[in-house]
């Protein structure tokens, strides 16, 4: 499959750009990389040397948070353009080595880290979780790659299982058969691999008799909800499910936390999919949790830089990471806990807490972890 950059103008509506700069102005990496979305649109529109344009390292700085596209007054598909250029590069094989590894790993092992396929459900070994194939359920808890393999995020997976079990939610996981959702794969430019994952996963879900999907990661949530062409199975992010469970009195939260917490909106949950209220509802309902709102919240949340393949991309940015800025904002607010609901946010913040030397002052928690703590 050849990608023809000449079609980009039409495909991504580059010709209707009025060069207002709304995209660049709101870009979370505008000070951290030479990426200038407005100029990129213009240059792609005018260029007669696309291949040189496509070689710029800053194209990998984009986190695909979609702030630019969501705010664009003209409907230019900026983020799709970035993905289109990356797709062009991927098809030519000219992508950074770390991205290459992530994509090859996904094709081979079903996860971008290249961790062993069979070890995907190891985290759930002693939790008494049903696994499709061995047992059945109508509800799939789709775990995702980071929550399956990363020790830090595994604790979120475990927490969620405990909560569901306590609340009597009937669910099962796919175990070793689960594969990457492809959300980040598409954003790293591998459209064909994304399509394959979407097709294979859809077939697997249907074969397993799944009637409802709950995801841990907003990234998987986004892929299933918006980008899987033939899924037709309702998808929820776990915060939506927990908010319902708490609202419906299905969860007894008794143990006081004694914390002041703030919440960081993950881009793929908030901005892009408008799930703003449920996480806040959960936090507000936790006993002994004093919820403080951040200055930059909801649609104005500052991207943590974990998305769009940035977990695997090298460099392209300089200066203080947004993760650190976020941590500092939270500390300045007087929050002792920074809560989020996304594995990538969790990981980038955990990094930033250490690099900023603020580990004494604030802890990073996923909402599911906080909920489990209050269950006593």
């Amino acid at each position, binding site marked *: 499959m050849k990608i023809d950059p000449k079609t980009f103008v039409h495909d991504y509506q580059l010709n209707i750009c009025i060069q*207002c*700069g709304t*995209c*660049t*102005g709101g870009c979370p990496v*505008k000070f951290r990389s030479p990426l200038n979305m*407005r100029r990129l649109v213009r240059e792609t529109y005018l260029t007669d040397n696309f291949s040189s344009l496509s070689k710029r390292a800053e194209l990998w700085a984009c986190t695909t948070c979609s702030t630019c596209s969501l*705010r664009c007054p003209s409907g230019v598909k900026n983020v799709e353009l970035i993905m289109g250029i990356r797709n062009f590069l991927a098809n030519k094989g000219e992508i950074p080595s770390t991205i290459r590894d992530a994509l090859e790993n996904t094709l081979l092992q079903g996860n971008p880290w290249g961790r062993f396929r069979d070890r995907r459900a190891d985290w759930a070994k002693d939790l008494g979780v049903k696994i499709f194939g061995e047992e059945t359920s109508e509800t799939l808890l789709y775990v995702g790659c980071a929550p399956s393999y990363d020790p830090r995020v595994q604790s979120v997976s475990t927490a969620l299982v405990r909560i569901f079990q306590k609340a009597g939610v009937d669910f099962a996981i796919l175990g070793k058969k689960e594969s990457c959702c492809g959300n980040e794969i598409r954003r790293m430019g591998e459209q064909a691999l994304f399509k394959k994952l979407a097709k294979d996963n859809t077939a697997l879900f249907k074969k397993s008799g799944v009637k409802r999907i709950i995801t841990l990661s907003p990234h998987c949530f986004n892929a299933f909800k918006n980008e899987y062409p033939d899924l037709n199975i309702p998808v929820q992010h776990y915060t939506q499910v927990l908010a319902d469970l708490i609202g419906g009195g299905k969860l007894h939260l008794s143990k006081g936390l004694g914390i002041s917490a703030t919440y960081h909106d993950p881009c793929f949950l908030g901005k892009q999919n408008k799930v703003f209220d449920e996480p806040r509802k959960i936090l507000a309902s936790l006993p002994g949790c004093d919820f403080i709102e951040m200055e930059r919240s909801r*649609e*104005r949340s500052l991207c943590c830089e974990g998305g769009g393949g940035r977990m695997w991309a090298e460099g392209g940015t300089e200066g203080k990471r947004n993760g650190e800025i976020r941590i500092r904002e939270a500390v300045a607010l007087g929050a002792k806990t920074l809560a989020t609901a996304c594995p990538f946010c969790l990981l980038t913040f955990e990094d930033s807490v250490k690099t900023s030397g603020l580990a004494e002052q604030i802890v990073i928690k996923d909402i599911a972890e906080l909920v489990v703590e209050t269950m006593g």
Partner: protein
Amino acid sequence: MKQIGVYICHCGTNIAATVDCEELVRFSSTLPGVKIARDYRYLCSDPGQDLITKDIRNLSLDRVVIAACSPRMHEATFRNLLSDAGINPYLLNIANIREQCSWVHQDRQKATEKARHILRAAVARVLGHEALKTRKFGIQPSTMVVGAGIAGIQAALNIASGGMKVTLIEKAPFIGGHMAQLDKTFPTLDCSSCIFTPKTVEVTRSRQIELLVSSEVTEVTGFVGNFKAKIRKNPTYVDFARCTGCGDCVEACVLKKGVPSEFEEGMSRRRAIYIPFPQAVPLKAVIDRESCLLLSKGKCKKTCVEACKAGAIDFDQKEEVIEKEVGSIIIATGYDPFDPHLLPQYGYGVYDNIITGLQFERLSSPSGPNRGEILLKDGTVPRAIAFLHCIGSRDENANLHCSRICCMASMKQAHLAKEKTGAEIYEFYIDINAFGKGYQEFYKRVREEGIFFIRGKGSEIFKRGGRLVVAAEDTLLGTPLEIPVDMVVLGTGLTARRDADKVAQTFGISRSADGFFMEAHPKLRPVATQVDGVFLAGCCQSPKDIPDTVAQASAAAAEVMSLLAKGEIEVEPTVATIDPELCAGCKLCIEICPHSAIEFLEAKGISSVNEALCKGCGACTAICPNKAARQNHFTHTQVLAEVEELVG
């Protein structure tokens, strides 16, 4: 023997470039009943029309087919020609070979072939045309103007000064609309109330104008010259005849914390009984149902009643329905400012000191909450202010249209802010729209005053270190910026009224894609609507500044007066009739008629069309199972003859 003349128009090259006109002439000559066929460069020109007139006379033609542009363009022109030449104008048929043929095709041969079909059908149809007579009706010499902002007031005053009756209806308890809220007006910096108050006062003085405030039109029936309107007058719980506007009741109102004042755009609060603003016309107190403790909760000490020496307060006041018969209607319902809550990235409603343009006007107005001082919420003077253009305008996520006035309004406000506070001022803009008289000069002046113009749309506003930060890109430098300021004024656009759809339904008019009311023709009939006798003025049609609004209002008034001056109107004879012999009385036509023009004659057990109400839409003829309903000029025979030739 019928004698048809066929005329093919070249329309310069509009038609001739794509359609072989000579071939059409040759072809037409072979069609049955055609006596003569000719082509000409511009048939609508004087020599073109002469050519046809002469033929009619010399060759005794009794029917004419014009193959040219759309009938919407020139049907009236050629009907007049037929009339003048002595034959019934309805014996004309227009074959549209421009919009439906030459303009939409490129292949000359195929286009010519299609034109032949169109022409053949037109000739077949005209053979069945019947002579019809137009109908005439009398006209009520009065007008209803809906909305009493600057547009409605201007139109009402113009008509009244012409000596005709006007009923001016305003939903709010006072007149003046948005212009009454403004501080100064661009580019001349006239004080808005100084130039506007005389007009509002004149409204109350005029004997020709009946002013109904707190009123809404709920139903309109009838047709041009003979509209019947139902108007609901909402209770104000104050007898205006007695109220002196002294304000004692307001002081007495127990709702001390008040509710946000609509007139002050929420920048200050009012009580449940209130006088909207000191210059309000009429200067009467009104009670707001929602906030009045007695009316909403049924419990109050009624201190206002005690305080009113005139005994004007009347909690028993009920809603009233007034019926009016008018000859014409002007709709001047104005606009709603864009609600910036819809674009959460601007932090409106999250942070203090982020205000809309209209809120700034109140802030800057000497009669406003700060008596004209531009201060932050904490009472201090801002050191830096940002003005953001295009908030809610030119935006796929809000409104696609340009609101036209915001660039100028924003620059005017920037000027005022600079003058009053000396703050650093930033204008974040995409393009500067300085299109009016003296506007570009004003733009230059403001630049000279030292205001920073940043070419880049504000992307978001957040708070850092206690100050507001505007994030944007200086697109001319290609540099992202984050500029700390103390106040942000959002140049909010103009949108159609929230209830525009309801209003459009009430008056039977339509709306364009932007939500504003649609004019009859965007260039040639910008004041009229598709409903005869209903006209538009001001921002209800599209965003405009005060001079344009006043001009359109005057134009609407002129249209009304020329209509009313005629005393009677002619109505197209293309109405439906129901053949009493064929009607089975099934009433399907009555159900479907959108104009309620068909009644059921109980005695005879059949339906009958009221020709005065019939608009000739044809719905009844289509639904009638017995073919009893028949529409003049669109009879089954005429239409079928045309269709047969088209598909044949």
